[in-house]
């Protein structure tokens, strides 16, 4: 697109003389009859992309925004330390790999945004991320070209993406977004290219593009779960093409089945396998205990080097008389805990507090007793009796000698539940201390096992189940977490497992063999991730970004507060232009279907052009909707940068629609204008776009002169909306 801008720019002073040559160039450009023209334009787009993206890529020389997270995760891969994050691993693994390959040693702590990178080789990671982000522009070019075979449309779409300041900002740092956007656009390139091969099915290029699409899909899902939307998009695209194949009665059913199987292989099996592979690498590389351990179950932790459960050995089976510690089986659950303090006046009976506590502590020890016998009654040489599923037991808190007890009193925080207390003297309590042990999905009479079994403790008299959740007790409870007896027995928070089991009479066995295998680890890390994701709720009063604000570019996001200051904000010309284009599309669409429904005669030329445009736009609008509308339904905390995948599709749509309008215009204006209107409008469009990029570029490349007294600085002039907070 640069050639035409410069050319139209040049043409302005000497219109009369050079009109002919300019027109020729434009006709060549519009028709695109030689591959040479295509390559020239494509080359210029690529060059400009590289120039804008890599300019000042090393600045600012400190940690920017979420680099603090993703840089840290990258370091942890290099150090092989286990961590927990709500996103799947591929993006972070790539960052780690980039760092490793470019000589980063993984020692920089990435504590908070603004920390200086002195002496750290961070540039490699940045450049690699930026390079992935830079691919978006040629990708857009190829997609639109394949959809419309119109060079102006492809150039328009690519330049809208190229000159958007927001995308530039977002793809210049060590973040997941450049990687995610790369894979999303890659998937779409794959599917359109694959579609272009439909005339020669099962050829090598056909298979190659199919596998390319599949691997790109797996890449986008394994970077962030929002990558699922592009999977749906590709799925719909595939269903449509299969449906057409199937509806063509010339194709035999076996032929259609072959097509179906090939696509299933390339677009379902391959991505799933790759997804597993990424997780396998993730779980194999991260083998050392780190700060993410607590989110995972005891069995999972026993696999991590350096964790206290690693290589631990204790009796597998639970016997009466054993001293155990119990961990709530929900994600991030604590240990059942008690201490000599009582519940305060006014919250139930004034008996000893029972809480859960996340740290390992002597106060987490409980003695397992029969419901009707004290351990003192037992002789040393009595045979060992094992606890079975459904047995009635009592649990005595070892340090204080009180039994785990519950009764019909409201719990201190969750009033609907019953209070759980420690009651009795030296193990002598009352009948309210009796609990029934239930092994989840266990057989009758099955022996209760350490770590492996999930248990439920049902209060014998009240019928409620021992529960803990992450609601904290007030100060009197040392802000430990509340333990209650839940009348809803089926609640998932009611599950516990035995983490430690001390009983000298039984042989110790190692838990290596009970450690989860890859599939179990895979499943567990997914449940943990999903819980983590749904836990990202905005807190009360916290102002979050709303989806309606995104397309209108209402508010940006601070990337770097220090010097230079960087602010993520879209190019308003692009954003608002996209909105106009969307309206144009819907109007055109309605008008077209109305005309068809009413049976108006449309000239075949117009009809063909319209059909082509509307089909391309239909797919782009679908992709835009898929990447934007679901955010309205999400309860989690949202940010402006979530809009950028949708923005890419919206910009491409603008390119296609704009091209259609530009092509239609010459026939609508008077004859003497019709030859010059196209070059003029193209020139006007590109100069506006480039000028707006020039105006807003400081937001991305760093704003220096920020003294508020300096009112005339460009930064003040471009603050068009009050809600932009730079």
């Amino acid at each position, binding site marked *: 697109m640069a050639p035409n801008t410069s050319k139209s720019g040049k043409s302005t002073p000497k219109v009369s003389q050079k009109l002919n040559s300019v027109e020729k160039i434009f006709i060549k450009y519009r028709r695109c009859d030689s591959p040479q023209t295509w390559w020239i334009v494509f080359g210029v787009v690529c060059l400009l992309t590289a120039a804008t993206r890599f300019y000042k890529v090393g600045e600012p020389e400190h940690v920017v925004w979420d680099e603090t997270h993703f840089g840290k995760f990258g370091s942890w891969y290099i150090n092989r330390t286990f961590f927990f994050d709500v996103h799947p691993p591929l993006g972070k693994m790539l960052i780690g790999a980039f760092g490793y390959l470019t000589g980063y040693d993984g020692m920089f702590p990435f504590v908070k945004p603004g920390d200086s990178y002195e002496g750290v080789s961070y540039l490699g990671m940045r450049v690699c991320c930026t390079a992935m982000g830079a691919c978006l522009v040629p990708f857009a070019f190829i997609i639109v070209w394949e959809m419309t075979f119109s060079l102006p449309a492809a150039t328009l779409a690519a330049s809208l993406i190229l000159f958007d300041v927001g995308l530039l900002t977002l793809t210049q740092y060590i973040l997941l977004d450049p990687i995610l956007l790369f894979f999303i656009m890659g998937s779409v390139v794959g599917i359109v290219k694959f579609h272009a091969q439909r005339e020669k099915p099962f050829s090598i290029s056909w298979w190659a593009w199919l596998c390319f699409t599949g691997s790109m899909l797996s890449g986008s899902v394994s970077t962030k779960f929002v990558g699922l939307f592009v999977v749906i998009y590709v799925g719909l695209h595939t269903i449509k093409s299969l449906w057409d194949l*199937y509806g063509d009665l010339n194709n035999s059913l076996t032929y259609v089945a072959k097509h179906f199987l090939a696509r299933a292989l390339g677009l379902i099996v391959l991505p799933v396998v790759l997804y597993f592979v990424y997780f396998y690498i993730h779980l194999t590389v991260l083998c050392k205990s780190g700060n993410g351990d607590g989110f995972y179950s005891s069995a999972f932790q026993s696999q991590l080097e350096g964790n206290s459960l690693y290589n631990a050995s204790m009796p597998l089976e639970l016997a009466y008389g054993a001293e155990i510690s119990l961990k709530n089986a929900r994600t991030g659950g604590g240990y059942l805990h008690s201490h000599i303090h009582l519940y305060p006046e006014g919250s139930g009976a004034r008996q000893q507090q029972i809480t859960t506590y996340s740290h390992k502590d002597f106060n987490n020890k409980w003695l397992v007793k029969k419901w009707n016998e004290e351990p003192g009654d037992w002789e040393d040489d009595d045979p060992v009796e094992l606890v079975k599923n459904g047995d009635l037991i009592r649990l005595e808190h070892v340090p204080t000698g009180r039994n785990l007890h519950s009764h019909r009193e409201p719990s201190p925080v969750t009033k609907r539940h019953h209070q759980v207390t420690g009651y009795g003297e030296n193990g002598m309590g009352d009948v309210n201390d009796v609990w029934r042990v239930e092994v989840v999905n266990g057989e009758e009479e099955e022996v209760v096992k350490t770590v492996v079994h999930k248990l439920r403790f049902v209060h014998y008299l009240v019928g409620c189940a021992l529960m803990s959740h992450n609601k904290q007790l007030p100060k009197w409870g040392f802000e430990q977490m509340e333990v209650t007896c839940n009348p809803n027995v089926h609640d998932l928070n009611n599950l516990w497992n035995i983490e430690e089991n001390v009983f000298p009479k039984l042989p110790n066995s190692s838990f290596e063999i009970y450690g989860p295998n890859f599939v179990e680890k895979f499943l567990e890390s997914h449940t943990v991730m999903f819980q983590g994701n749904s836990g990202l709720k905005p807190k009360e009063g916290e102002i979050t970004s709303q989806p309606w604000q995104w397309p209108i570019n209402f508010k940006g996001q601070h990337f770097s507060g220090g010097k230079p200051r960087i602010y993520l904000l879209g190019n308003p010309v692009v954003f608002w232009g996209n909105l106009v284009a969307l309206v144009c599309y819907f109007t055109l669409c309605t008008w077209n279907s109305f005309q068809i429904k009413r049976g108006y005669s449309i000239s075949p030329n117009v009809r063909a052009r319209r059909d082509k445009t509307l089909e391309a736009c239909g797919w782009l609008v679908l992709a835009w909707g898929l990447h934007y509308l679901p955010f309205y339904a999400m309860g989690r905390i949202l940010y402006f940068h979530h809009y950028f995948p949708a923005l890419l599709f919206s910009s491409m749509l603008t390119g296609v629609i704009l091209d259609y309008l530009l092509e239609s215009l010459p026939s609508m204006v008077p004859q003497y204008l019709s030859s010059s209107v196209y070059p003029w409008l193209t020139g006007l469009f590109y100069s506006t776009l480039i000028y707006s990029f020039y105006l807003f570029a400081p937001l991305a490349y760093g704003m220096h002169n920020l003294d508020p007294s300096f009112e005339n600085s460009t930064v003040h002039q471009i603050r068009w909306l009050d809600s932009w907070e730079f």
Partner: protein
Amino acid sequence: MDTGVRNRKNKSSPEAEKAIKGKIEEITSVDNHNMLKESIEKLKHLNENINRDSVCDGGPKTDTTTLDRKGDGESAPDTPPPETAPEDSLTTPSPTTTTPSTTTTTPSTTRTTESTTKPSVTQKSSARQKSKNAAKSAAAAPPLELSLRLDGMSVFLFVLAFITRIWKLETPKGIVFDELHYGKYASLYMQNTFFFDSQPPLGKQLIALAAYIAGFDGNFKFDRIGTPYDPVVPVSAMRIVPAFFGSLLMPTVYNTMVELGLSHYTGALAAFLMIFDNAVLAQSRFILMEGILMFFGVFGLLCILKFRRFYHQPYSVPWFVCLIIGAASLSACVCVRYFGIFTFLLGLGILTRDFWMMVGDRLVSERQLLGHFLTRAVIFITIPVALYIGCFYVHLSLLYKAGPNDNIMTSAFQASLEGGLASIIANQPVKVVHGSQITLRHTHGRTCWLHSHDAVYPVKYPDGRGSSHQQQVTCYSYKDVNNWWIVKKPEVEELVVTEPHEPIKNGDLVQLVHGLTSRALNSHDVAAGMSPHNQEVAAYIDYNVSMPAQTTWRVEILNSELSDGYWHAVESQIRLIHVNSSQALKFSGRQLPDWGFRQHEVVTDKVLDQEDTIWNVEEHRYTRTEDKKEREKDLLRSEMIPMERKNLTFWNKLFELQYKMLFNNQENVAGHMYASEPLDWLFLKRGVAYWISANSNAQVHFIGNIVTWLSGTLSLVAYLGLFVLYLLRRQRACYDLPEDSWNKFCTFGEVLGIGYAVHYIPYFLVDRTLFLHHYMPAYIFKLCMLAAMIEHGHYLVSQHFKAPRIAKLYLGAVGVWMVSIVYVFWFFAPVTYGTTDLTADQVMSMAWRETWDLIIHKQ
């Protein structure tokens, strides 16, 4: 997709075209040449609108139906041009049987009689299946009585439903589940006391009306579930409202099914399933909204579907009646509960779809199209808006007294209510002057007042930042003596009201001195505790260090034109701008931790124009000293707020109430014991305990009829499976169903399937505690789908197996299945009606699934 397929089929089947021609011939012979063009036009509409036809000949047994149906699937553009029709008509005489074309030209009254000829058969046999009473009424009779018989079916269904609903209506004589709320609202209506509820008021008003007619005075405290009712509470009168609407639902469903082109048997079956479902019964037997909601929704849809019939008589009386009543009923549905918006949208969707079909009709000119569009738009805009505003008008004009939860509303709103804030602020001076004592309320959003207390900010926060260590200023949600501040002009020293008064005007500088601690409101360049990017607000303590006092604030009155620029109590909305930093005093929304007693944080913010920076004076009095009592008496006499409530216009009140209803999250009962997830609803995983007797195991447990429930889910799966199968086969040009059956299959799927989805799927996105009864509107559609699928099954069986024995076997199986439904209904009736004392064993025997938590509290 569908139309494309249909077109292809048309091209491939010449017989269909013949059938069309045949029809045209029939018309031409019946009508004379002048009417010819008109009737062709109508015929085309007829073809477009396949449903209407299948309605007219809904009964499967007559000869005419098979004839007529041939033409059903044709789309208008392929019909022969009108010019050829007359010639054909001359050559072939027409059969004399009644055809759809005659029906279309006859007035609507004839139609009803005619369409009842088949129902008589329907009714007879369905009645036989169910009860002997109906069989008597179905005896053969002269044609005139036939029209009464259609009503007979509806009436029969209504009566049957009504009997099951009002049986022992007054028991249990205690508050059942949400009667707690709705009963309370009714009693508040009786006492004209304002209450706040985040759902619109129509349903509550209907119940209140019934209570009013029954002479209830509202003197009963609805405090907890299970409390026995006093004799003064007209329980039966209040419960009869949902019971009545819940019973009306049955004939409505019956007619809707018929309108969808299904047979009368099927319609009756759907109503039967609904009558004998324990969940539907329970929801329409107690003072709950679902019965009313479901009736309005389905009735609205029925009208919209009926509207299709009058396609060829636009702007006639029945045309208008259907459209207007449909719009009214659908909007009533929204006025009962906001979730009814989905029913409304479904109705609107059907209307839009039908309109789009009309766009394709080239005999309707563009001008006519525009007219149709505008008429529909006007009706569907004015009626909903009028009804919605109307019921709020009633709501707000009835509730004029202050009530228990009106402090959600702004001070101005509260002041417009009798008693409450109005009585507190009565007699208080209007103009805020130097020396005024005020409480400053955060106007929008969370209710709280600017507050300070004798505690300081911690020296260091956990993240290492320091604070000013000055006295905390917070926003506190309760009335408290520490909410009082004294307004002071910076240049005047003493804290009493000066004579003459020095009123504060828009733009004046003031200081605010905390009443009890006498420290002035201050802000400075220190990051606030919870929101580090904002400035901290404190009450200034002079530590004699480098931090100077910055205690002047500028008063910006947002609605100063109302008060001539003066600062008035209650009505003036103000913003306090900190003079040194030009930032505005703001409620940040964050809660302080323990050191701030969990009150809310107050900061200043650079962004002035936001709702959280708006405050208003709520209580107000002048500071006086003892020796000036005489002067104060004069002062009080001179400036007084009149005793009666201040009048806020209806529109102001409405907008505020709307705003609060939509944006105020009422506290959500998290982790309710009987809460359930949308996925649990599909298989009836859990019920809800509604009531339990204090003395015995008698209880009301809200649980559906498990047989119907599971069959319903199965029918949805079956529909989806069959639909995909048919579609796949059609794409390969295998037409399993004749065009008319396929269209029928699509039509009922469109309305019932989409209706189900639209009422069910949104719950997956709702972020609040859900109960089984939220599923009820979707469940209605599921039951209709079940009945429709049984008819379709019968069709398939009789189509594929030539032996009539098999079809009879199928009907026999359906009969057995229906008996089992009645059995299960009867079995669970004790916990639906709650009238029987049960032993523990009996209760246990009802817990068919482990997750059904019926209560046993007496052995």
